[in-house]
């Protein structure tokens, strides 16, 4: 390991003269050091050193970008990236930038199969899950197939085939696995899925919730934040009616969140704000879970219990995805263009900016992790 690292160092030194700006792709990550990963166009996986908030290195990804959604493996050695127009999953070894896992989601030559952000890894890192939406492409017509949960061994290498697969509900998107192996899948409702039997139940009704005097909530969320507190959280919007007459004209529009704690399987649902502006993502502070930070056109901070906007910061352009460093002392705003804005969550003052090589981060998720 040491040898490898010094080789990498040599490689870096050797390249200093010619391409000082570009870090070698095989530059090893430091153990116990905090990094942040994000993808962007044309097809990069960037590793940022959060101690200096500078680009540590860039891994070039194969095939096409899109959506570039990534998860970090539980042992923090790999990034799994849903890419190539939602049709393939790639596992990239972070130390070497080598692609060590590749699953083409379609299972037959005449099938197109795409995962709409449905990707999760088991807590032991041995299995990877994806709900795919298949379509049979026949000679002169298509037939939309039923979605399948495909289970892969993460050791399956570059031509990974599902170990097993099970019928899954339609319209699923994000999913994450709890420490006890329950796979929580968000769709019309949030389901808990047994990845060994294929059996699934509704863990939390969403579209079909029965909250008195609320409209069905609307959810558009495709950022699978991996948080320090192991919270799987999703924002919703809804209309809260005055009374059982359910008059939209007098309803109050609300922002809220669903949260599943992946350590305890505890499920929460709470409104946190009046819906006055849109946020693409929102995360609770790891320091104070009563504080919600939402971002799109502004960065806003809410007191959840009081449902009160505490503060909002103007932004130089839209940002889609919010992430905290592990300590909760810095907020990273990513998505849109190729720059990440850094904010102080206490003051909501901007304290830095990281410019990335390449283009738009689009709807990539920033993941902060300690190697």
């Amino acid at each position, binding site marked *: 390991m040491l040898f490898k690292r010094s080789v990498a160092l040599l490689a870096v030194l050797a390249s200093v003269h010619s391409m000082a700006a570009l870090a070698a792709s095989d530059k090893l990550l430091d153990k116990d050091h905090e990094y942040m990963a994000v993808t962007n166009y044309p097809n990069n996986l960037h590793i940022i050193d959060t101690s200096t908030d500078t680009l540590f290195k860039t891994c070039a990804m194969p095939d096409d970008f899109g959506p570039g959604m990534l998860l970090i493996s539980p042992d923090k050695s790999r990034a799994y990236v849903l890419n190539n127009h939602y049709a393939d999953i790639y596992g990239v070894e972070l130390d070497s930038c080598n692609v060590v896992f590749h699953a083409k989601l379609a299972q037959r030559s005449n099938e197109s199969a795409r995962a709409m952000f449905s990707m999760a890894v088991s807590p032991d890192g041995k299995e990877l899950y994806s709900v795919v939406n298949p379509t049979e492409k026949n000679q002169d017509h298509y037939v939309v197939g039923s979605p399948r949960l495909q289970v892969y061994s993460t050791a399956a290498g570059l031509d990974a085939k599902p170990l097993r697969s099970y019928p899954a509900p339609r*319209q699923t998107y994000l999913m994450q696995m709890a420490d006890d192996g329950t796979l929580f899948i968000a769709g019309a409702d949030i389901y808990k899925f047994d990845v060994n039997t294929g059996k699934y139940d509704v863990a939390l009704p969403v579209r079909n919730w029965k909250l008195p005097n609320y409209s069905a909530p609307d959810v558009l969320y495709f950022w699978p934040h991996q948080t320090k507190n192991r919270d799987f959280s999703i924002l919703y919007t809804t209309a809260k009616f005055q009374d059982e007459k359910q008059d939209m004209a007098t309803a109050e529009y609300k922002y809220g969140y669903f949260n599943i704690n992946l350590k305890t399987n505890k499920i929460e649902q709470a409104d946190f704000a009046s819906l006055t502006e849109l946020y693409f993502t929102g995360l609770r502070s790891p320091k104070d879970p009563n504080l919600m930070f939402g971002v799109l056109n502004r960065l806003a901070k809410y007191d959840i219990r009081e449902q009160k906007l505490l503060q909002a910061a103007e932004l130089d352009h839209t940002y889609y995805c919010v992430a905290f460093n592990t300590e909760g002392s810095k907020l990273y705003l990513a998505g849109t263009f190729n720059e990440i804005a850094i904010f102080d969550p206490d003051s909501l003052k901007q304290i830095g900016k990281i410019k990335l090589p390449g283009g738009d981060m689009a709807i990539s998720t920033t993941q902060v992790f300690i190697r």
Partner: protein
Amino acid sequence: MARNVYLPYQMPRGTVAQHKNNYRGGPTPMTTRLRQRVSTLALSMAICAVLQSQAQAAEDGEAILKAKCVGCHIPEEGQALSRISHQRKTPEGWLMSIARMQVMHGLKIEDDDRRTLVKYLADKQGLAPNEADGARYALERRLNNVEDFDEKFTQMCARCHSGARVALQRRPAKEWEHLVNFHLGQWPSLEYQAQSRDRDWLDIALKEMVPELANRYPLDSKAWTDWQQQRPDAAKLAGEWSFSGHVPSKGDVRGVMTATVSDKDAFDVSLKGEYADGTPFNGSGSAILFNGYEWRGNLEVEGVAMRQVLAATAGEIRGRMFETEHDERGLDFVAAKQGTVRLLAVQPEYLKAGSEAELTLVGSGLSGKPSFGEGVEVLTVLEQTSERVRVKVKTASDAPVGIRMVNLGALKGPNLAVYQQISEVKVVPEYSVARVGGNGGSTPKVQGRFEAEAWGKDLAGKAYRIGLVPAKWSVEPFDERAAEDQDVKFAGVMSAEDGVFTPGAAGPNPERKMSTNNAGNLKVIAAVQQDGQTLKGEGQMIVTVQRWNNPPIP
């Protein structure tokens, strides 16, 4: 002779849904390549192409269909081919289907062959005139038309593209079902979008929409069977056509269109006309007739390339002409054939009580004395031909206000409004969309073009339309948000004199808050002077981003 056979559109560039998936609308390298290829095709199509004898076309169409389509499409009983034989569409609809086969399924077909194939299919499996009625605005590129379909259809079918695109097709249930599967298979994000993710989209599409569509837009219809029997010979359209039109910001136009048969279903076309102020409106080009009535012309008028999307039925040709590069610039067009007796228009369409004015009647086979009703006296006949009667009239100050019908000999013609006072000014279109463009991008700016429509009150106090009147034009922020974002400053410039709004340049604007693009939400204000007073009308214009995806049928 070289002949242009074209359809009025840019070639499809993917679909709206595709672009919605592509979050920020940026083209991928693949779509860019396709676009380049597609625009080359469109260009080569527009420049010139020698079409083999149309008489041969049907035979050739069948041969091309066999050569190019069999392989994927499966031969069925009686010369039929799977999928293709079970649909009816407009010429533009067929073109979009074939282009999609090229873009998505690797069909290789020469432009000439594609033209022949479109003609063959549009003739063989088209829509009866009354089946296209009510949705022609889409073919005519009236992109500010606000559709009015029922809520379920709007949400399930017309959320990403026009409802007209659906309404201009005829299929049996199985084919509508294939279409649903194609949509979700091609654009899997479709069932996650707003107004999809709140419901079991696929279930509703298959179980509810398919039967509804098969019922509403069936493959087999009496209208189509009848039309195939009565479809007239195209050669009957040859001759002179007296036309009338109105060009926003320029005024009324009239003249004669001459069509000469150049081949089967093909014409040489010339226009000889003028605006009300005498400015010439002359041009020439060619046209093709699809399915016995779908007239598609390609002309150069006063140096500007223009297209005609017209329907030729019952001795009349009616539709819209528009600039090839800017389909927002165009005119309503109506023409009557020489030999028919028809009164098409009166220009202008109103008189003010207590004034003298010149009126022009446009039509064909015109003869006799015009009469404009009580209180309107014809002072002089300035010009009288079979296509045009131009008169000077005096309107009495006590002439009854309201709408009246023009009479010419035995003809009862268009409506003429007489007014004393304008009581209200409306901006037309009331709601519209302009688009940023240019600035090195592939898409030109789309202008807003407005007119002021005067309304009066008749003796019973009922509102009546007077007509289009001159106005001074301006824009204002539509709401507080627009004011705060300085939309008026950034979104574009309104020409005070003629109501033409030219949007700003495309792309992020570093001068704007958050570097946003030059989008805006504006009030469009028309100020009309009357007796020293100003009457104002107000419309709304959204200035938005480019329409990246601009297929023939929106």
